[in-house]
């Protein structure tokens, strides 16, 4: 899914690399000239060594203006890949901070320097991943997981996928049908639950979602079930009453983990709403859906960075097993790797 971004980053890497090399070439000659006449004064046995050290270990200072062109190219490339403006600024800023004024030894490969910098910048931006199975193993059962997000991001489908994923890992799971607002939502999750063979707790449409989810938790406790997955109705972060309802759900069911679901194709607004959800009910981890629509993957990076929450899964298709645990190191390697 990251092919687009990967391609662009490879180009950026070459671009910055060449810009540094272009700078390095003339400076080498200038640098040596004033240095040489001084050498004979220190005539000693180590003279040859000194020259060697001087030439090879001499450091070059990379300046701001030399990188400007390459950095602005990098900026446009990131923006085109759906990386949000602020995150783009963060990455470009990081690369600039790392490279400008840095001392590059002549013997050091330009490519390694650039890759190292980009890798640090991306890892910095991506944050840590999140291992759900590990989390469940290390916590008291039942582990209660609440899914939140705006309308149409794919919460219900994600609940089903995570249910299938956990079932495959050997956990017992119950789903609480907390979307009692949208017409057809209960039927939708009911069908999903039946297909993947998971027990579902539901009330009628229009019921109090807190009550449904409370029942789901009670069911899990009395049946010694490992995980409760709580679906909720999608809501826009601007609707105060709906956000209050979500806050009530949180109070009543006391979730261990709040999962914020958004789509990988969302633009800059993703940041605004993620922050708003985080503020009202909190968000421990993030799931990004519809990642298969976006070959560029920039939104994933942006959201992970801005909420400052680890990314747990990526949804990559319509089937139940189209879900991918997210590992920042693997992604960065994929983006910058040579293969």
């Amino acid at each position: 899914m990251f092919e687009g971004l990967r391609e662009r980053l490879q180009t950026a890497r070459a671009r910055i690399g060449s810009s540094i090399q272009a700078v390095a070439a003339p400076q080498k000659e200038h640098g040596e000239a004033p240095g040489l006449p001084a050498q004979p004064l220190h005539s000693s046995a180590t003279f040859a060594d000194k020259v060697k050290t001087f030439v090879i270990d001499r450091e070059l200072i990379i300046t701001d203006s030399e990188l400007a062109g390459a950095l602005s190219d990098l900026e446009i490339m990131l923006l085109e890949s759906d990386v949000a403006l602020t995150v783009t600024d963060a990455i470009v800023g990081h690369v600039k901070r790392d490279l400008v004024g840095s001392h590059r030894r002549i013997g050091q490969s330009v490519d390694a320097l650039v890759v190292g910098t980009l890798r640090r910048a991306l890892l910095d931006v991506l944050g840590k991943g999140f291992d759900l199975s590990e989390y469940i193993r290390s916590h008291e059962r039942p582990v209660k997981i609440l899914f939140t997000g705006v309308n149409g991001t794919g919460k219900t489908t994600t609940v089903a996928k995570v249910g299938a994923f956990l079932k495959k890992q050997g956990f017992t799971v119950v789903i609480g049908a907390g979307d009692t607002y949208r017409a057809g939502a209960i039927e939708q999750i009911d069908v999903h639950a039946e297909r993947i063979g998971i027990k579902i707790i539901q009330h009628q449409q229009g019921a109090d979602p807190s009550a449904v989810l409370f029942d789901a938790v009670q069911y899990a406790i009395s049946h010694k079930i490992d995980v409760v997955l709580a679906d909720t109705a999608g809501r826009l972060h601007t609707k105060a009453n709906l956000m209050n309802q979500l806050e009530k759900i949180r109070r009543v069911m006391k979730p261990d983990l709040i999962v914020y679901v958004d789509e990988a194709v969302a633009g800059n607004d993703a940041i605004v709403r993620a922050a708003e959800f985080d503020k009202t009910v909190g968000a421990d981890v993030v799931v990004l859906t519809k990642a298969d629509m976006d070959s560029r993957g920039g939104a994933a990076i942006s959201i992970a960075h801005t909420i400052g929450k680890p990314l747990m899964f990526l949804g990559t298709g319509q089937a139940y097993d189209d879900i991918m645990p997210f590992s920042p190191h693997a992604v960065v390697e994929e983006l910058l790797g040579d293969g």
Partner: protein
Amino acid sequence: MLDSLSTSLKDALKKLAGKTVVDRAAVDELVKDLQRALLSADVNVKLVMELSKAIRTRSLDEPPPKGMGVREHVLRIVYQELVRLIWTATDVKLEPQTILMAGLQGSGKTTTTAKLARYFQKKGLKVGVICADTFRPGAYDQLVTLCQKINVPCFGNPEANDPLALTRQGLSAFKDLELLIIDTQGRHALEANLIQEIIELNKLTKATHRWLVIDAALGQQASEQARRFHEAIGIDGVIITKMDGTAKGGGALSAVAETKSGIVFIGSGETIEDLDRFDPDGFISRLLGMGDLRALVERAEEAITADAVDVTSMMKGKFTLRDMYQQLEALNKMGPLKQIMSMLPLGNMELPSDVYDVTSTKMVRYRIIMDSMTSIELDDPSLINSSRMQRIAHGAGATLDEVRELLKYYKLMQRTLKGLRGQGGKFNMQRLMKRFSGMQ
């Protein structure tokens, strides 16, 4: 709605308005700010680049028309280029037709289908809905529930798995109805078999319109997705959904530019009535700090009966307490005051927040007080002196302060409406210029 985009654009324009001489550097600065504003609103990068290039060249090359300052000249170009960016309004005809809904998963097709059915039903057409989404569990239940609320027939079968066969049955079952809306499964452009399916659906239904539903939050992907949908079935209208959030809808703008179509409707809430017609001129004006007057009038026409307030005559200037009495009642019917106000072209004029605070209970109080006024007082509020005030308060069982508050509110409304006069309908560039100049 679109608040953030218009704030950043206004900031960018304000910077230019502060300049005394428009030189190359000033234009460059504006263009850079515009770029950032549009990019952060998710407008496609290439589109932004084209736009800024055109503005820069035109601002520097074209001589300003006589009588227009250099600064106004640049503003006019910005406006024109933005209008060009969002293309033209699409005409929605009230005649028998078939509408095919297309869009990505979760963009809001099903909800919008029901909203559209309601819209055309209110305009007096016999509407029918076909659910061609045989993939998503619950899709049929969702559409049926929504259609039942508005008494629109809905054809579908949750057990079926062939959308083409199902649609064929639906078409023959509904052949007596005037307007058919076909809701389809969510799909994205990279799913070749699903794209093939919608091509066949389009052939089968011979749809008059193929509307693409786009989430206001959709990012840079919008262009690409819209292009592929356009190639497949020829999109002739775009509907932006979830515009009541903070998303700026820039992605939808890119989609419009890509399909060379217009934005037909915008969805702005969860209830079935929350669908508005889109008017690009108004949209741009609003982007630049003016309101969308036409949408308000259209909405008002539906909510107000013939004998109630005539919005247009009110705008013309005569505004008495009697008008306010009727207006308070009418506004109550139209929905929350704040929503109405956000549609009025108030521009940069910041309304005091207490204008919004007229809650329904307060409106009732106001009405009781006005009931204690004579008809001469209602027609000419300037007559009301302190002894008349005493009498009114006594008669209404209210305090003097309440009467004063009512009169204050009346004056505020009067001033507001005075400010609106003369801008209705046509976009008034001159006034806009003045307003921008005034912001320095």
